[in-house]
């Protein structure tokens, strides 16, 4: 059941990704992106990362993508999309480079299951025990506010800076 | 005096105060209102000079080699320590620094017109760096201070300099930074080699002393260190940054550059290069190369100086010639040569500093540095003329001035081992007259033709206050240099003896001896505390017991020292 669901979500994600890249209409790209994010959220659930799945849907798909949508609409890009996708040599180069990338990665995955490192990989029992004991929120929250508290604070400041920066950049010159 | 100093614990805090108080002064300057910045800076440095005078009494010429020592862990993991110490060589370098700084600042009151606060703050920062260099016992700390001196100087030249200041500043910075980076590599290699012997990690000079190195390693390390210091000195083919930097730098910058910063190079040779790489230091090729470069520097720089139309550039080239005497004195590796080299360093600091100050005063009056714009000034500015003549004579080493003592000893010391090269170097005294007298003549003598020179004011009270101490020192050190020489003597003898021992008995044995001598102190007092006790350091002579101890503990493989019987 889980495997089947994974492949369904995977197919959705890959399909959505292609949609993002290949759709001429930005709004359509954006919607495909939302779909992809949703699929990935589904996979998160399969990996018992319920909290992240929720955040993915609420924050990513819900907030960030809507922000993108707002910008697209603000700039009124929905109807004039001719010169958007590269063609000719540009397209070829893009394809070649990412193809090479894909090739390299594929080479790495070949025979991964026989890799001794993979053989010695721990099972999900540890995580299961942790989740059983603390619940997903507790399991994330505890290190977040202890071991990672500095990073957490930094990220908070980063968000503030980004907020101020975005306002400063986007507002009209007075 | 000594009792007073003891009573206030002078030897415990003096060096730290001399390094860090300038930073406090920098803060004071930055917080003060713009128009009072220079006065605060001058007062501060003058007070520091008075403070540093205590070193004269606190340093006991009969005492151990390194005095006023202290050692605090800084980066314990790597063995980096904040370790300070003072020997006869650094004593005078520190005094020279603390003396030059207030005079340079006092001499810049009229010259520096913009960003005064920043300027004086940088000068104070510079003082921290320089005093730090001269008192560091830890190579890492030394490197930090060595680099620290670069930054303020870069800004001083680059911001307050003349027309081509940016070019000069960048050239100065890149040139010296290149050398010191190679030195950093050398320091790290040396450190790694020392650790490879199983010793605890340490950058302390005395710990690194006697690190076993093959001759090839020594030569490479020597090259790395020597390049850094040769650029700083500067030795002949690496000197071209100097005229540019000197000409473009504002007066106080030139003064500090000539009087003190150049000495960082020769000081480095003396303090680190000779003892750390004793075999390389007497390797015939190395010695010949260094001596030849020194001699070329003396003659070549004198020639080039003689045809300069720009007075400041002329004096800049004379610095190269003077430092040539220091280089040959150092690499002749005789007591007289080293003493002479040190005296030249001191004397050059005083006389060239004064020359730059005087040229700066002329520049303030006429806004030109070209020699041909002057002439006949002796009639309008007799006081300035007197100062310039005495300074010029001290610079060309007239007996009775400090310049003579230095050059005489340096040449004598070189002659003891390398008569032919010393003979060539001695022609420098002829060429010194060849470059200096025409300049003096064309500035002070000849007909007073230019009407602008006619209304030139003579020295003001402030300017007299700047020059008088320097002129007095030139003559005092020329007539009675013995107090200086006798304080430097133990340090110089120790270096010569150490290098001799290292080559006669092999570096391991000599290192063991030096280490043993230090160890003797530590065993007596308790190894850990010893380093913080003033006076811990190389102490001579070693006792036989300590030697045995060292042999058994540190270098188990080197039984049977030649020369151990004595």
């Amino acid at each position, binding site marked *: 059941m889980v495997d089947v669901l994974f492949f369904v979500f995977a197919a959705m994600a890959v399909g959505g990704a292609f949609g*993002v890249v290949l759709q001429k209409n930005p709004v359509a790209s954006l919607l495909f992106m939302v779909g992809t994010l949703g699929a990935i959220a589904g996979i998160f659930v399969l990996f018992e*990362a319920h909290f992240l799945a929720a955040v993915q849907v609420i924050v990513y798909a819900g907030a960030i993508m809507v922000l993108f949508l707002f910008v697209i609409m603000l700039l009124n890009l929905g109807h004039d999309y001719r010169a958007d996708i590269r063609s000719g040599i540009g397209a070829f180069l893009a394809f070649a480079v990412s193809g090479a990338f894909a090739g390299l990665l594929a080479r790495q*995955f070949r025979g991964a299951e026989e890799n001794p490192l*993979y053989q010695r990989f721990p099972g999900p029992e540890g995580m299961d025990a942790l989740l059983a004991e603390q619940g997903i929120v507790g399991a994330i929250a505890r290190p977040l506010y202890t071991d990672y508290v500095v990073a957490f604070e930094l990220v908070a400041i980063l968000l503030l800076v980004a907020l101020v920066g975005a306002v400063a950049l986007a507002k009209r010159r007075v | 005096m000594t009792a007073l100093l003891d009573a206030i614990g002078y030897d415990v805090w003096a060096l730290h105060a001399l390094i860090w108080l300038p930073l406090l002064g920098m803060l004071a300057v930055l917080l003060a209102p713009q128009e009072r910045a220079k006065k605060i800076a001058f007062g501060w440095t003058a007070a520091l000079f008075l403070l540093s005078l205590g070193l004269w009494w606190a340093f006991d010429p009969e005492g151990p080699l390194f005095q006023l020592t202290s050692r605090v862990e800084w980066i314990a993991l790597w063995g980096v320590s904040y370790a300070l110490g003072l020997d006869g060589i650094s004593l005078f370098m520190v005094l020279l620094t603390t003396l030059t700084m207030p005079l340079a600042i006092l001499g810049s009151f009229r010259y520096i017109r913009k960003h005064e606060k920043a300027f004086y703050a940088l000068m104070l920062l510079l003082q921290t760096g320089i005093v730090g260099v001269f008192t560091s016992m830890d190579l890492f700390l030394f490197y930090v201070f060595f680099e620290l001196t670069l930054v303020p100087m870069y800004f001083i030249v680059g911001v307050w300099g003349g027309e081509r200041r940016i070019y000069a500043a960048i050239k100065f910075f890149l040139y010296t930074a290149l050398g010191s980076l190679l030195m950093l590599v050398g320091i790290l290699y040396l450190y790694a080699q020392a650790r490879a012997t199983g010793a605890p990690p340490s950058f302390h000079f005395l710990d690194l002393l006697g690190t076993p190195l093959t001759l090839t390693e020594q030569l490479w390390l020597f090259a790395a260190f020597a390049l850094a210091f040769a650029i700083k000195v500067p030795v002949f083919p690496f000197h071209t940054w100097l005229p540019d930097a000197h000409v473009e730098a504002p007066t106080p910058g030139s003064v500090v550059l000539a009087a003190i910063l150049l000495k960082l190079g020769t000081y480095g040779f003396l303090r680190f290069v000779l003892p750390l790489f004793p075999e390389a230091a007497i390797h015939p090729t190395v010695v010949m190369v260094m001596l030849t470069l020194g001699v070329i520097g003396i003659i070549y720089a004198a020639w080039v100086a003689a045809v300069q139309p720009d007075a400041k550039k002329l004096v800049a080239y004379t610095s190269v010639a003077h430092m040539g005497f220091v280089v040959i004195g150092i690499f002749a590796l005789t007591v007289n040569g080293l003493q002479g080299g040190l005296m030249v360093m001191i004397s050059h600091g005083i006389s060239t500093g004064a020359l730059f100050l005087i040229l700066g005063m002329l520049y303030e009056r006429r806004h030109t540095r070209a020699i041909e714009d002057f002439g006949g000034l002796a009639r309008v500015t007799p006081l300035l003329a007197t100062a310039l003549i005495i300074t010029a004579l001290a610079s060309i080493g007239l007996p009775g001035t400090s310049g003579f003592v230095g050059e005489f000893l340096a040449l004598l010391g070189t002659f003891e081992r390398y008569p032919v090269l010393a003979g060539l170097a001695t022609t420098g005294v002829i060429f010194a007259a060849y470059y200096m007298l025409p300049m003096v003549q064309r500035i002070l003598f000849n007909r007073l033709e230019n009407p602008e020179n006619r209304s030139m004011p003579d020295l003001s009270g402030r300017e007299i206050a700047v020059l008088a101490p320097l002129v007095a020192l030139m003559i005092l050190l020329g007539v009675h240099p013995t107090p200086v020489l006798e304080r430097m003597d133990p340090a110089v003898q120790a270096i010569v003896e150490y290098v001799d021992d290292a080559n006669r008995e092999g570096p391991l044995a000599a290192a063991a001896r030096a280490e043993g001598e230090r160890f003797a102190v530590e065993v007596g007092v308790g190894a850990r505390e010893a380093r913080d006790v003033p006076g811990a350091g190389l102490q001579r002579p070693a006792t036989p017991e300590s030697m045995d101890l060292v042999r058994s503990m540190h270098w188990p493989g080197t039984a049977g020292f030649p020369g151990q019987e004595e």
Partner: protein
Amino acid sequence: MLVEALVLSAILFVIGTFGVLLRKNAIIIFLCIELQLNAVNLSFVAFSRFLGIDGQLFVFFVMTVAAAEAAVGLAIIISVFRHYEAVNVNNFNLLKW
């Protein structure tokens, strides 16, 4: 299941890369970068299933940074658009030498 997740992650990442290189619309390029980030997130989550909770924490941070990046990036796009009346990256070539 780990390997499959990683392969999916790789595929998504390559597609994102392809998109970045292929498209000229600055907004779409941003979307593709988000796609790449998500591919990485997927890897993190997959690993975290077996290796501990830290992977999820990283994803959390990546999301935050992505949010900040999107905010600033979009603000830049808006201000650039005001200047050029376009979001085509081929137009932006003044920032050189």
